């Protein structure tokens, strides 16, 4: 039975390592930053808010279509999901590596 459990854990570790790479790749693919819409004199103007180095920059984008804004909103939501999943996968890897390294009873 121990062999079965170990093999399942080893398989799960392999899966988690693969997932870590995939989530990192998926995060890189998402557009950076999020859109902030400011209302100036009754007109709406969009700014892309993103971190460049240590600073948070507001880059003027002008008027954006609803579709473009929606894309950024979706990316924001996915980024949060993927970051959460990545953190979960990293924890799994740590746990599984530790478990598989553990000494067997004599």
């Amino acid at each position, binding site marked *: *039975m121990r*062999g*079965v*459990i*170990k*093999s*399942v854990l080893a*398989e*799960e570790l392999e*899966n*988690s390592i*693969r*997932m870590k790479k*995939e*989530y990192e790749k*998926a995060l890189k693919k998402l557009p950076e930053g999020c859109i902030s819409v400011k209302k100036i004199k009754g007109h709406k103007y969009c700014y892309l808010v993103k971190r460049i180095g240590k600073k948070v920059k507001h880059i003027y984008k002008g008027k954006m279509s609803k579709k473009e804004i929606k894309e950024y909103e979706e990316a924001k*939501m*996915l980024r949060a*999901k*993927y970051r*959460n*999943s990545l953190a*979960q*996968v990293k924890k*799994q890897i740590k746990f599984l590596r530790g478990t598989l390294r553990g000494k067997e009873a004599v």
Partner: protein
Amino acid sequence: MEKKQFKLCVEILKRFHKAGILKDFILIGSWCIYFYKEYFSDVSYTMQTAIMTRDIDFLIDQPEKIKKKVDVPELLKDLGFVTIFKGSQGYIKLDHPDLILEFIVREKGKGSNKPYPLSKLGMNAVPLRFLNFLSTQTIKVKVDNFYVNLPHPANFALHKIIISKRRTKEEKATKDRNAAVGILNALIKKDENDIIRSVFFSIPKKWQSRIISNLESFNEKNILNILNI
């Protein structure tokens, strides 16, 4: 199994149901063992023999009959699933820290190592042998307010016995054997020996002899007796 893993599984099934594609799928793999608990509610049925992984597999018995166009990766994207391409042939899997989703179809003829395209679902599927055995007799299990198709436990268990010897990893073979024997014993307790026998005698002689030799090597005399061998 973690509660959130089960919740995610139900959410996936619910979305498939709402999209109108759940009826085209048969849930196979170790998740069946969990859902069989309703079927075995009148006998003692423990899932200790089954070590569940994160893999959740769906068999599509007749992929050409899928009418609805549903982009499955898109349907599950907001749950945090990412699409991955596995191996040189590019089998598509949907990964999530709690579940790994994969579609499987029956392998026909000589077989091929290429994925089977499921263009209507935005996915592809892995063709595997002996799967018609799982789809010939199915049961429906109620989950939430909808039904999920599962292979009949007898078909599931005998299929596991056939494939256990084909496994390259010994541990996987042991896992298959433990799950199969656990389910067959639950069926015996449920007094469904006739069903085990009828499933056994409905399959080709070659498969029957494979089951017998595997059961003999597992020393499962009780089950062999049920089969009158």
